[in-house]
């Protein structure tokens, strides 16, 4: 039995807006409209995942997952429209940085909703994996010219703060 989501809709929207700003305004990729949905307390990732911890008045995780082809397109856009065929060390660094940009922008958007958060340096997981946690994940799908990026988000108020 999965616990009912305790995430605030305003917080989820802030994160979604952040991702849209990065993908659309900064990378110049067209985005289709989509709605967040509840994934429960586990999900199976796509080929590549960027994991980031959230700490502050909210705590939890943001896990950004995508197919390799999507990652290649995103990295290509980040490098100014280059055609990228494989992820070398620089490419891995770039996709990590993509996660950082989304999470950093999310921190700014969340500040408008009176939430103060810090983000831990991103960690990459390569290969399809099952992620489990005690709390519920909400999934924000982002479909763009680069393919689909799923943002799996689990953030709840930090009871210590």
């Amino acid at each position, binding site marked *: 039995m999965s616990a009912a989501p305790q995430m605030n809709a305003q917080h989820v929207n802030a994160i979604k807006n952040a991702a849209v700003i990065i993908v659309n305004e900064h990378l110049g990729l067209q985005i289709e409209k989509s709605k967040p949905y509840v994934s429960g307390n586990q999900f199976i990732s796509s080929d590549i995942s960027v994991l980031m911890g959230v700490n502050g008045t909210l705590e939890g995780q943001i896990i950004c997952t995508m197919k390799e082809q999507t990652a290649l397109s995103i990295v290509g856009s980040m490098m100014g429209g280059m055609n990228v065929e494989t992820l070398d*060390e*620089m490419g891995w660094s770039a996709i990590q*940085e993509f996660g950082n*940009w989304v999470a*950093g922008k999310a921190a700014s958007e969340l500040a408008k909703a009176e939430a103060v958060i810090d983000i831990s340096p991103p960690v990459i997981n390569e290969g399809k994996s099952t992620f489990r946690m005690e709390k519920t994940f909400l999934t924000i799908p982002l479909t763009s010219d680069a393919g689909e990026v799923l943002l799996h988000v689990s953030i709840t108020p930090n009871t210590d703060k």
Partner: protein
Amino acid sequence: MASVLIVDDASFMRMMIKDILTKNEFEIAGEASNGQEAVDMYNEMKPDLVTMDITMPEKDGIAALKEILQQHAGAKVIMCSAMGQQSMVIDAIQAGAKDFIVKPFQADRVMDAVQKVMG
């Protein structure tokens, strides 16, 4: 030619910043991938300018900024972070940063900041 120390844990970001600066005829004094390396390299190289990320392992950019300024009051440091919320910007400026660039950025934004700081 002014020399710049680039500090960022992501090699991709270091490459981007290096690319912008070298195209604009700046010399790259060195690259550091965490705050401690930044402090050590600053002491060694005394660059004219530093671009400093904030979220980094070992020592974050704000702590490194404070340490550099303690030892070199005239150091010119521009923060360069994805964490652009107002509280972070205020912390950095109060700690002595000359400017704050939010990632992702355009090359023009970087050059505006650099030229303003270098006077």
